[in-house]
């Protein structure tokens, strides 16, 4: 059974929208895109490297998939993240995409909870990693398919933007399993749902 891990950058007020750049996702008139960049330092890189080393597959929503598919194939050949992401299997959840052309990609168009549960049951002990993909994460949350959250809490409050935990998600208890900090004031927290 493989582990499904949702990893995401969050502000202190829980916003996850467009951490990487101004044009990443401007939906809802969001003007703070790129807010995470000042806080990504060497410590963050090290933690990220370890997490990515254990990743066997990526499970992505349509928007994050398109951002990744446009960027990673063009990354320098010696970029270790690029090598990894370009080679491992990618699963993209979308009802609107016709095809997924990035190397080793598979489209999931329907029966999303069942398909994801099947992915988790494939042999192996590695991690299926969900990054970004807020809407998909909420679907997975609702269907109790998330085994672990890795939340990068950044020292900033935005007051608006899409959140990982939207209002009216079912209340749930979590267990804290790890806590790290970086030199640039980011707290990296790992939680597992306490309902299993």
């Amino acid at each position, binding site marked *: 059974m493989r582990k499904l891990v949702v990893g995401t950058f969050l502000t202190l007020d829980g916003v996850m929208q467009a951490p990487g750049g101004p044009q990443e996702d401007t939906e809802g008139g969001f003007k703070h895109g790129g807010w995470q960049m000042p806080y990504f330092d060497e410590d963050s890189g090290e933690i990220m490297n370890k997490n990515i080393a254990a990743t066997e597959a990526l499970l992505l929503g349509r928007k994050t998939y398109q951002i990744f598919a446009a960027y990673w194939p063009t990354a320098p050949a010696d970029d270790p993240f690029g090598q990894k992401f370009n080679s491992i299997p990618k699963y993209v959840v979308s009802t609107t995409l016709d095809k997924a052309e990035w190397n080793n990609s598979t489209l999931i168009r329907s029966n999303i909870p069942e398909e994801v549960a099947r992915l988790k049951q494939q042999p192996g002990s590695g991690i299926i990693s969900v990054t970004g993909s807020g809407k998909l994460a909420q679907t997975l949350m609702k269907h109790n398919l998330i085994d672990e959250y890795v939340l990068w809490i950044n020292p900033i409050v935005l*007051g608006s933007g899409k959140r*990982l*935990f939207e209002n009216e998600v079912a*209340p749930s*208890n979590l267990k*804290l399993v790890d*806590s790290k900090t970086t030199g640039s*004031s980011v707290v990296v927290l790992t939680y597992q749902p306490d309902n299993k």
Partner: protein
Amino acid sequence: MNYMKKLIVSNAMSLDGYYEGPGKDVMALFDYRWETYPTDESFDAYNAERLRAADTLLLGRTSFDGFKGYWPSVADDPAARPLEREISRLNNAIDKVVISDRLTSEETEPWHNTRILHRADAHEQIAELKRQSGKDILMFGSRTLWSDLLANDLVDELHLMLTPVVIGAGTPIFDARPPASLRLIDTRTWDSSGNVLMRYAVNRRKK
């Protein structure tokens, strides 16, 4: 302006950023304990630690009424846990300042060591308090008040106890982007708890 005393805000927050649950129920942030972390006393322990380091408890009206309605008698309640009795003793003994235009001194009963400041005077009076020497000025709860003080450059540290629960609805702890930046001082975790204490210094704006 040279401040001698630190103003420290210490609050709990759910993992999804709430200050309290639906119906202003603050216990929504802590109900998880009984199932997942039944012996967790970290929040009480940290509150006692902050109270011991303070000589003034600064509160908004809502939190003042809430605390005054609960804490005074806990010190003498044999059924209460020792840590709760200590918090009660500390809360009873500490000088309290409450910001309110309507509260009367009779209404502070039995907490006679309470000073009432009107809202219009709050910023100047709190700044004056910070210029005096002594231990910390501490704020528990009081979200509306500390949001205003944070926006007006009067808060030195923000201590957030992040509880391991998603509650899905309630009052968000932050309303808007504050005009201040935060630097992580440290974090703390406990063996028997899922809480993470995150302590931030508020960077003062250049005047």
